[in-house]
């Protein structure tokens, strides 16, 4: 579809035009030792089923990036993920919108600097890469603190030497269900800026700020957010094997300072041949909202008020190992993995939400056995959320890391 959208004249022009398309999905059997209101739960789910396309023309001056996500049909009730939250889901990772991203970028050069302008639906220039492009299957709790995605967005970027600056305009509202489009009437009510630097080989430093208007209320009357993010990423071989590490801090201030949510996350991976070992530590605060009667993993939507029940702080340790079975083969890619998490929760500050009562305890174990199935050369390397110069800076810093 994306290819069809390209002007016919740009196709088939030798080296100046290229296109890739790939698909992937994960079959995962996940166990959680503790659930809301007590008890344990195991589920077999297909998560992150996606079709991804990337095309370039005019030697990369024109680019199209698209990801179509089918989670609306495979996990309509969310992915079993204790501590995850957002878009009306709690302790479940919400399904992403069907049209996850469709961005068109124009890239040009002026002297030694590279400029880009990207527009469409996708990620705003803020924070770190999407968790689907990183190590763990388990989405971090800070998903809504460290990324801004699925918006109608216009991003301008400049890459000059080891420094990249990006600014995005977008609509503040988050989607409420997978088939929902951004509220285009709100385009431009929110903005973000991200500064990325590569001071030494293998090191990437990043700092972001975003002013997001009413993300939780589509009409625009909800509380606003000021979001800060900073990260450091290191990608250099360790003992002769590829090594990656990243640490990020994020803070979201909401309601004119009434609510402050902090997050710290650090993760690392070490590739020993076709085997990858990885670990992630996270400590993140999240708001607690009133849950729907009979659906303890959903919160009341639409909102009635701007009140929350309190804040919880989640501490997660996740360790995993995966192996590429067909790394040198053809289009089919298989990567089985096993991932285990130990999680604790505590109240962070005042409020009436008592996690010990709600979960009948405060510690959780999780275990996932899964296999990532990819089809296509870029099945494991397609990066979401990077457009224009943000895509190009990758060649100067890190290789993509995915679970």
């Amino acid at each position, binding site marked *: 579809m994306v290819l069809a959208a390209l002007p016919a004249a740009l196709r088939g022009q030798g080296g100046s035009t290229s296109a890739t398309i790939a698909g992937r999905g994960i079959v995962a059997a996940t166990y959680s030792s503790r659930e809301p*209101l007590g008890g344990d739960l195991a589920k077999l789910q297909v998560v992150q089923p996606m079709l991804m396309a990337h095309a370039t023309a005019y030697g990369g001056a024109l680019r199209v990036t698209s990801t179509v996500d089918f989670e609306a049909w495979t996990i309509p009730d969310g992915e079993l993920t204790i501590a995850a939250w957002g878009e009306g889901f709690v302790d479940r990772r919400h399904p992403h919108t069907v049209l996850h991203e469709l961005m068109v970028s124009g890239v040009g050069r002026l002297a030694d600097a590279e400029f880009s302008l990207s527009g469409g639906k996708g990620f705003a220039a803020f924070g770190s890469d999407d968790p689907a492009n990183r190590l763990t299957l388990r989405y971090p709790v800070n998903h809504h603190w460290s990324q801004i995605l699925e918006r109608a967005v216009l991003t301008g970027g400049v890459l000059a030497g080891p420094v990249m600056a990006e600014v995005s305009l977008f609509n503040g509202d988050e989607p409420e269900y997978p088939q929902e489009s951004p509220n285009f009437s709100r385009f431009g009510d929110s903005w973000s800026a991200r500064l990325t630097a590569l001071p030494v080989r293998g090191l990437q430093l990043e700092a972001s700020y975003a002013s997001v208007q009413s993300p939780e*209320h589509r*009409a625009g*009357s909800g*509380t606003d957010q000021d979001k800060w993010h900073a990260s450091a990423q290191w990608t250099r071989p360790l003992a002769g094997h590829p090594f990656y590490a990243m640490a990020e801090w994020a803070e979201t201030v*909401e*309601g004119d*300072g*009434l*609510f402050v949510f902090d997050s710290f996350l650090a993760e690392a991976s070490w590739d020993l041949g076709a085997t990858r070992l990885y670990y992630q530590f996270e400590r993140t605060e999240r708001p607690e909202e*009133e*849950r*729907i*009667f*009979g659906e303890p993993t959903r919160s*009341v939507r*639409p*909102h*009635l*008020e*701007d*009140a*929350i*029940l*309190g*804040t919880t702080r989640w501490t997660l340790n996740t360790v995993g190992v995966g192996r590429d079975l067909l790394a040198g083969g053809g289009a089919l890619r298989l990567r089985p993995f096993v991932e285990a998490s130990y999680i604790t929760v505590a109240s962070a*500050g*005042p*409020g*009436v939400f*008592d996690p010990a*009562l*709600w979960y009948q305890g405060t510690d959780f174990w999780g275990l996932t056995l899964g296999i990532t199935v990819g089809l296509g050369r870029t099945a494991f390397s397609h990066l979401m959320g990077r457009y224009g110069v943000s895509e190009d800076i990758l060649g100067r810093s890190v290789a993509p890391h995915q679970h």
Partner: protein
Amino acid sequence: MRIHMAYRAALGLALLAPAAGCGSDSAGPAPTRLIVVAGGDGQSAPVATGAVLTAKVTDVSGTPEEGVTVTWSVVSGGGTITASSVTSGAGIASGTFTLGQVAGQQRARATAEGVGGAPATFTVTGTAGPATQLKKSTGDGQTGWAGSPLPLAYAVVAQDQYNNPVAGVTVTWAVTSGGGTLSSPSSVTAASGAATAVHTLGNTTAAQSATATVAGLTGSPVTFTATSTTGIRLVSTVGVPANYGLHDTFVRDGLAFLCVWDEGVFIYDFGNGIAGGTPEAPKRVGSLVTAGGNAHNAWWYHSPSGSKRYLFVGEEGPGSVGSSSSGDIHVVDVSNLAAPVEVGSYHMTIAGGTGSAGTHNFWVDEANEILYAAYYNGGVVALDISGTLPADLSSRELARIQPGGAGNTFVWGVMQYQGGDLFASDMLSGFWRLRYTGGAFSVVGGGNNVPERFTSDLWVQNGYGYTGGWGNRGTQPGNAVKVWQLGAGTPLLVDSVITSGITTVSDVQVSADGKLLVFSAENGPNAGLHVYSLAGSPSQPVFLAKYLVAQGLHTATVETVAGRTFVFAARNPANPALMTFEITSLVP
């Protein structure tokens, strides 16, 4: 005069006729005499009675002719008439027209030999005779809501012996069973013979009947029967923008003040008369967006001096339940209801936490001109609202109290009981009895008495207090209405009403007559409006009816408009609306 004119016209036609006939083979023989109306045309007479008609016969020159036989016939109306009569020396012949039995115009004519095609025509109006019978017309056998008017009026028809409608008959109406009322004790029949009355059914499902009586008439009295049903009746729905929706509604004097969050305060006429609105068809009067939006609740203040200038609006800002809150009290001048203007506000600052607190529900002691406002973590505040209010009401603060103490206070609502003590519902610390005297609050009793649930709204009446529950405290849903005996000191818990399938009792109120307990419920399959009877005992509510609303109802305000009892309820997003229910039929 009419006779004279008719005569002249006929004469003229007769004189012209021969000339007109020249050259025309189809013309009949020329008339040799004329016949005209002499008397009796245009008269009225009761049906089936005789009316005398007279005709005059002359020659073509106008000279009366004697001894001419005049033939009479009925043209319409079904009556009878003298077959023939002979003219006198003045050319006059008379006949008696016995009218038909149907009221209305009846016609007859007279003719004689030699008059050609120009007979004399008479019109007589037959009028109904005296009423002799009373018959049922419409309205019998209806089913309606107990306590409410039937959709159709009862109607009877007075008729004479020939079934003609008789106007001007006075019909006496009376309820004979069921305890309802009629729109009038008597009514007079119209030209159609009908007299009507509207039956407002009694508040019972027992047999309901009424009679229409006219003494001496056959068929009187006429009995009408109706079947009454009881329940909650949705009478109108007023949609509001899907922008956090509608929160509380304050109703007074037939006006409803809808607090519609960032959309502001909408003022609707539900029977005040200012805009011709009714509960079934409310009309918008005006609106205002208060500073900061988040309009949550209101109180239209009527001062002892009679001033109705001020509307107090509560702003419910963001907060963390149990610990922090925000939002001010806004003062709106509603002297012109069509164009309200904000003229002041009150902001509470507190020590600790975020340094401020936000308001929730109000109660106004109008006699003493004091506004009591629940202020969540700020507790309860008393404000002097006498006279002209300043832009900043901070100087009007009289006293405040955190009944549960810092960290254990999150007051949802406050209400004064019979002009004396105040009662407060605290989400954290339960149900309190407070007293404001000498410029200071004190705790009389209560508190820390609902440890298992978050307490929500309250109402005090009949010597009892009623408190709701909110959300989940741990895993315990706020699905209870607790009943408290107020006594003179510490409130005593005497009963609870548990409603399965909800997590929140969001608003509680007792009807003004003390007979109905009404609460709104949210979050669950039983969300909606619930009505209980307190008629047997105010300490033991008895379930009467419920009206389920899938989205839940956020608030429910009980008010009487034109003698009928309504609930003004806020339906939650995604399609928020003010739903107006009539519950008159449930009033015991």
